[in-house]
């Protein structure tokens, strides 16, 4: 991976409609119960992950070589059913440690009006192939 990636902004993901069904599925999968209302704090990862997948595909990076290093969310407001959201990923940093690439990304999740809902940063560890 080369340093020209830093600062690159990748195309926004396709609009994602947040439904009660998807939020309930997410809550149930993490052992909770959902009675309507705001989505849980880590739900925006669904959008951020979509953006990351598109980035990995564009850069021909294998998902199975990626391990999550860090994740931070900063919320302007909670995500709610009915929201139509997109995520726009940019590469913030790139360094190498022990043959692994450490990729810092930021995804901005915005609503139909273009307002920021959540900014999330992820550190992705790209594990080198074994010698």
């Amino acid at each position: 991976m080369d340093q020209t990636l830093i600062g690159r902004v990748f195309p926004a993901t396709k609009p994602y409609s947040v439904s009660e069904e998807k939020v309930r599925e997410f809550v149930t999968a993490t052992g909770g119960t959902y009675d309507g209302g705001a989505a849980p704090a880590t739900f925006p990862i669904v959008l951020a992950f979509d953006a990351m997948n598109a980035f990995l595909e564009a850069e021909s990076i294998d998902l199975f070589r990626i391990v999550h290093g860090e994740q931070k969310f900063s919320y302007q407001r909670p995500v709610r059913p009915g929201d139509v959201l997109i995520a726009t990923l940019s590469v913030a940093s790139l360094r190498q440690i022990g043959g692994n690439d450490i990729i810092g990304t930021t995804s901005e999740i915005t609503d139909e009006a273009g307002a920021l809902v959540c900014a999330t940063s992820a550190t992705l560890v790209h594990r080198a192939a074994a010698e």
Partner: protein
Amino acid sequence: MTLPTQTYTITRADLVRYAQASGDHNPIHQDESVALSVGLPGVIAHGMFTMALAARAVTTWFPDAEVLSFGCKFTNPVVVPADRGVDVEVAGEVKPGDDGLTTVVLTVTCGGLKVLGMPRAVVRA
């Protein structure tokens, strides 16, 4: 103030459900041979699954609070055996701020080992 520690059990079936719900179908969370091939000790839980459990604890402690920020590092993998579940413990300390916001400093461990680094949430309680 110390919050009551929450214990959650993670099984392989949970990882399948989480993969479906989140869209994260990375095979290192399903397939032992792929996990071993990239140098992992076995099938590991999605870091985001463990983080979601930590968020669930915050919601249990502060049911009606708005979460303003939430972050952590993934410092040690949670290895999930094929034949049984593994327990993750989520402990929390409250640090009230003078701005009306509450910082929840979490400690998330598996088998006594911290699996999340610096997990913390800021909530408006």
